[in-house]
């Protein structure tokens, strides 16, 4: 097992290298760099240009050098904890993004928690009550949930909240906490607002997992070992939870690894619609204004987050299913 984990961590290295390259390529795609546009803009407005600062920055990030040198410097700086400088915010990137990455992670992980908390029991119920009225209802809701893209659900929730309940669902904090330092009260306030983005981000995946859980469990329930256990007089609940459910859970655990990228994707666009202080709006702004280091850091960190979670889910799967060979 230890060997397996070490090998998996080793496998992560090339993946991370490719990810860093793609992130860098993405942020370098637009023609020109931020400095040239910024200088032109400032000159047009007759503003004072801090020539020294700009020259220093140009030097530091090697904007005049070939692309592979720039990439090398970028990676080297990141390995030393320096994500670069956000032109737009006039601050080092790591100062700007820290809290936003944290909030994105909180939303994504809470949504994942909710997905499994809902999908597994409802899926079990749906499978054991196959073709009942409740099962049909669940199926219909699940299909609609699957068909609703996150941001459309967010739009509809906003609309319904405003028109029917006359509340604004925008934001993650009440106004008095928005800029306050972290405190117990602020965490409480966060929890009060968290459920809306969590519902928005989680619905599609909950519906998907629910269908998977139902399908797998139905497969298992028809296998002879279930009949044998029933014939031996095992209580129905124990019979269900001890064997078929455990078997049916495996695809859900291995599905964890692609769930987190989906969560982060969903959280990004949902955040734009709901105006959350997370990565989404800031990434969008950074991409629009070619704030390359900020955008690059976001893409890189979001991807790294998902690679690490892939590793965790693989380890979890290996641990939960002893039949898996640590080849």
């Amino acid at each position, binding site marked *: 097992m230890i060997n397996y984990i070490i090998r998996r961590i080793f496998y992560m290295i090339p993946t991370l290298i*490719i990810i860093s390259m793609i992130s860098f390529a993405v942020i370098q795609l637009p023609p020109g760099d931020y400095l040239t546009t910024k200088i032109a803009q400032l000159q047009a407005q007759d503003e004072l240009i801090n020539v020294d600062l700009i020259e220093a920055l140009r030097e530091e990030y090697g904007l005049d050098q070939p692309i592979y040198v720039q990439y090398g410097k970028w990676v080297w700086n990141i390995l030393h904890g320096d994500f670069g400088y956000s032109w737009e915010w006039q601050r080092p990137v790591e100062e700007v993004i820290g809290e936003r990455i944290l909030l994105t992670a909180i939303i994504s992980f809470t949504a994942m928690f909710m997905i499994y908390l809902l999908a597994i029991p409802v899926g079990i119920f749906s499978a054991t009550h196959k073709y009942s009225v409740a099962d049909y209802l669940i199926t219909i809701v699940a299909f609609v949930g699957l*068909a*609703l*893209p996150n941001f459309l659900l967010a739009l509809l929730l906003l*609309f319904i909240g405003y028109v029917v309940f006359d509340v604004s669902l925008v934001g993650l904090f009440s106004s008095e906490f928005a800029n306050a330092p972290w405190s117990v009260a602020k965490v409480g306030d966060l929890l009060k607002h968290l459920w809306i983005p969590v519902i928005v981000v989680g619905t599609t995946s909950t519906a998907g997992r629910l269908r998977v859980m139902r399908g797998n469990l139905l497969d298992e329930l028809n296998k002879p070992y279930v009949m044998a256990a029933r014939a031996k007089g095992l209580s129905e609940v124990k019979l269900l939870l001890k064997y078929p459910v455990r078997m049916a859970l495996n695809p859900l655990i291995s599905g964890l690894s692609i769930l987190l990228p989906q969560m*982060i994707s969903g959280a990004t*666009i949902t955040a734009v619609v709901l105006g959350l202080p997370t990565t989404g709006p800031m990434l*969008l702004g950074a991409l629009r204004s070619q704030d390359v280091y900020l955008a690059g850091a976001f*893409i890189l960190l979001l991807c790294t987050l998902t690679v690490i979670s892939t590793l965790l889910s693989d380890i979890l799967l290996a641990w939960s299913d002893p039949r898996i060979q640590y080849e």
Partner: protein
Amino acid sequence: MSRRLGISLRFRREKSDLPEGESYYVATPRQLMWWKFRKHKLAVVALYVLGVMYLLALFAEFVSPYNPNVRHIRHLYAPSQKIHLYYEGRWHVQPAVYGLKFEIDPVTLREKYYEEKDKTYRLRLFCRGDQYRMWGLFESDIHLLGVEPGGTLFLLGTDRMGRDMLSRIIAGSRISLSIGFIGIILSFIIGLILGGISGYFGGTADLLIQRLIEVMRAFPAIPLWMGLSAALPMTWSPLKVYFAITVILSLLGWVGVARAIRGKFLALREEDFAVAAYLAGASRWRIIYKHLLPSFMSHIIVVLTLRIPHMIMGETALSYLGLGLRPPITSWGVLLKECQNVQDMAHHPWLLLPVLFIILVILSFNFVGDGLRDAADPYAA
């Protein structure tokens, strides 16, 4: 997913549904698939829905009552007009709409519309209206549905600039529905090449492609799409942007397809018929295209059908964010861009109507995919 109980239930129904006698045993695979697909009632309904939607998109100019870009400046943010059969004091066969009266509310300063019950305008089929060029080929001004001169026909309301929403939704469907199709074809080509190499030849190529697939799967799609489409120059022509967005969507779309194809190749290349073809001296190319590909094409079509909604969602999301298609192109995502704040939506809820069409299309593709999945293996009854 073989559902044993489901199958037995289904089998009993099958007996009564299927053509009697020998026809079942002499039917071609294609016929069997169709019979099986037909049994998934929701899928059949969904297929009809999609058919209608694509027909609407194909004949957009003719079907829509107005030119989607014409501004009716006297009818900004007009609500949807109701069609009446009871007017002028009695029932009629020919439906009609009332005139729209416009007023500014003195308190809220918002536009308010009233129906003028004394002015009725009858609806007409094949009515003359805005000029258009059908598929850029021939000119016409005949629209499927129109209204008597002097009246207006905004069945789904108008937007900020007084453009007819129904016409815009129909015009947008042309982009939104085709982007899914073209995107999936691109994904299929990339997926077939990479998945095929990986699955059939194996070895180092397989290892490399597998790693690439893993990396691509680890990417959160929307941030990557956002990054790529933000890089598109603003100066590009709408057509260029359209194809660029399609390519961007397929850049992640091929991954699932490649995985499915690789799995099928791995499973089938050791099958007896493939080995037999090899021993008979068939070239690899011939084995792949003549023997392997046809035997799993039905499964791949299922995978592809279920991926199309993702493409449509991707386009909608990008355009909504302002990174995808831009006006003057009309797509459902571009239409939804009007819904940027809650107040706008609350006062003009018909701006949200594209959402319904998106959901309808995505649901339909899911149901059709579900039905195809059942039909893909016609002998597995």
